[in-house]
């Protein structure tokens, strides 16, 4: 039996209910027992004075690769859990394109158990959409779902065949799960290292036309229309794709999407003099596209902000640009970079936090992601203005390949609670 905890003197932020007010929150038995103004500490309760800082639901990261199994030299679940706790993340949806791929029920339950063992983060694994994430035969959606798979995807690999995608969208309906697509037409993206355009031309880098994204989005929307399946597009980065998704939503199709902080905080100039930490997939885009992503965060077209955490080590990155691996570390900076848009006046605070909590929770029907009586006491306490500097080499966790290396951020996590237990700060 855990002792009660009362967090007092907090600015309560609950995007699900629209609450933004001073108050307190009581934790009992790992759940939120009460929250609001005028709460007093029950006898024997521990009291945490938040000092006026923001208290919000723990963040739900819709998409991350954690290195396990198969790439433990880059990241382990234990090291990622440290980074997540320091970043205020209490739930991570884990990508299945590992080695081996998460295409077997035993692997799905393995990931979930490894998450429980950390004690600080819930891991919700995606199942592979196709066997081995190889894009051919469908994986066993039913058995994987029973084992705990939240949805299906081939991770960073696009499901290239229209027929495979159609079958996946269709079959997944039986198990109430969406198919998450990496929206990039592979025959146009092969060998590319940067967004096609003036900068790639100057740097002499093979380009990927931004149309590769919109093209795949258009195709899969058409497939969602004929199958009635739910397609979710990962890390949307272009205005053209967002326009298609906006129209599909207006039509009433089951189409959702997310983006990741690099796509609303950086543009292609971040690759500068061949900076491989800024080599991502999809590649960073033009300023016009970045602004379109910001607008789509505000107007609701985008359903979630994911960390897109892709751990890479020095051997992956200290290479000529085209040979370096794509991907950025994103757990520790997820909240801070999102808050940068709030500080800039681009996105309201509750809208931004909602994209990290209530909206991914409703996409996955999770009980987390809200400050409500009876909800799990997964919480983050942060100071919205306190500054810190992102420094590769000093980030929590193993992966240090942050595209935000050197960036000054405002918004510091002071404490993280998982099921009522403090797992960071204090």
């Amino acid at each position, binding site marked *: 039996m855990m002792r009660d905890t009362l967090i007092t003197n907090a600015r309560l932020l609950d995007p699900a209910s629209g609450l933004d007010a001073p108050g307190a929150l009581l934790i009992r038995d790992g759940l939120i027992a009460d929250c609001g103004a005028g709460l007093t500490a029950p006898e024997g309760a521990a009291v945490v004075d938040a000092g006026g800082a923001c208290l919000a639901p723990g963040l739900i990261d819709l998409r991350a690769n954690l290195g396990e199994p198969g790439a433990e030299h880059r990241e382990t679940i234990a090291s990622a859990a440290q980074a997540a706790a320091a970043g205020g993340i209490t739930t991570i949806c884990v990508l299945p394109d590992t080695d081996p791929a998460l295409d077997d029920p035993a692997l799905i339950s393995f990931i979930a158990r490894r998450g429980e063992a950390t004690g600080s983060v819930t891991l919700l694994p995606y199942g592979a959409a196709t066997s081995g994430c190889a894009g051919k035969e469908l994986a066993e959606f039913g058995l994987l779902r029973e084992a705990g798979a939240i949805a299906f995807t081939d991770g960073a690999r696009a499901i290239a065949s229209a027929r495979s995608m159609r079958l996946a969208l269709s079959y997944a309906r039986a198990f109430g799960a969406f198919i998450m697509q990496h929206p990039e037409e592979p025959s146009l993206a092969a060998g590319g290292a940067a967004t*096609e*355009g*003036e900068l*790639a*031309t*100057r*740097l*002499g*880098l*093979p*380009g990927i*036309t931004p149309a590769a994204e919109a093209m795949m989005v258009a195709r899969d929307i058409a497939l969602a229309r004929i199958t009635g399946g739910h397609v979710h597009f990962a890390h949307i980065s272009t205005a053209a794709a967002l326009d298609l998704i906006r129209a599909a939503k207006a039509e009433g199709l089951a189409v959702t999407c997310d983006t990741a902080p690099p796509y609303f905080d950086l543009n292609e100039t971040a690759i500068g*003099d*061949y900076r491989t930490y800024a080599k991502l997939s999809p590649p960073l885009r033009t300023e016009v596209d970045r602004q379109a992503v910001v607008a789509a965060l505000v107007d609701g077209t985008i359903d979630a902000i994911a960390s897109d955490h892709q751990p890479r080590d020095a*051997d992956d990155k*200290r*290479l*000529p*640009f*085209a*040979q*370096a691996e794509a991907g950025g570390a994103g757990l520790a900076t997820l909240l801070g970079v999102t808050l940068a848009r709030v500080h800039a006046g681009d996105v309201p605070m509750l809208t931004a936090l909602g994209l990290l909590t209530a909206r991914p929770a409703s996409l996955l029907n999770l009980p987390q992601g809200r400050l409500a009586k009876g909800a799990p006491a997964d919480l983050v306490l942060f100071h919205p203005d306190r500054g810190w500097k992102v420094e590769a080499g000093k980030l929590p966790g193993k992966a240090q390949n942050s595209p935000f290396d050197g960036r000054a951020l405002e918004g510091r996590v002071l404490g993280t609670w998982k099921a009522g237990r403090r797992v960071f700060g204090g």
Partner: protein
Amino acid sequence: MSYPRKHLLAIEGLEPPHIADLLDLAESYALLNRSGKTQRDLLKGRTLINLFFEDSTRTRTSFELAGKRLGADVINMSVSTSSVNKGETLLDTASTLNAMHCDLLVVRHGQSGAPSLLSQKVDAAVINAGDGTHEHPTQALLDALTIRRHKGRLEGLVVAICGDIAHSRVARSNMHLLTTMGSRVRVVGPPTLIPAEAARLGVEVFHDMKAGLAGADVVMMLRLQRERMSGGLVPSAREFFRFYGLDAEKLAHAKPDSIVMHPGPMNRGVEIDSAIADHPTRSVIGEQVEMGVACRMAVLDVLARGLRRNV
């Protein structure tokens, strides 16, 4: 003599006085070379390493000769790119070079940005001798010097760069250098071989060879790699030659006193007709090679001035 950097990694970013000074110095080396009176001790005690990850007899030999004429100790290192982990080779090589106290490092690499990466890890002054599809700065300098000797200037000249612009580091360096020096640069080729947003680099784009050559002072041909055909960017060599190969008929659209250039090695009958390549008055391809040595001497000279004296 103004040169603002430790390395020569790219033409992009250099300003007109930097380029003009390098060309003036190269011109004086060209004259000295012809008279046989080169200063043989300028780089005495300096170590120049030619580090080539791609084969290139022509460029390597040119740098070797330039270094030896100035009295440097010249070492040639060819690194096989067939080894499994190319990146490790690159950075391992950097630490090896530091241990050897190399002063001047000439790098040719198949990947854009590789010399830039190396320059962050080695103590030596790095000269980019061609990186991927990015830049080949000394080629642009020798081309500019050759043009200047024939036309007396760069400003206001119409220069047509023809062929596979998209994959050419020579084209990129020349576009940067010539536009910086006030030439009017055209790029001519099929749309599949013109890089995205080429016009943003300050050049005019043509897909018709005759229109692109009309009134040109300089016709610069580029090598077409065979793999462009297998990659589907160009259907066949014969079709390419028919529409984009330089022959007498197409050259007739350029100015009567225009000069023809090619960085070599040439694919005769693909991008250039032999009769043009060997033309006694119009072709300056041989002179480009001569100016190559002079320009590389100028670059080595200028970068060596920026180095600390040996400790």
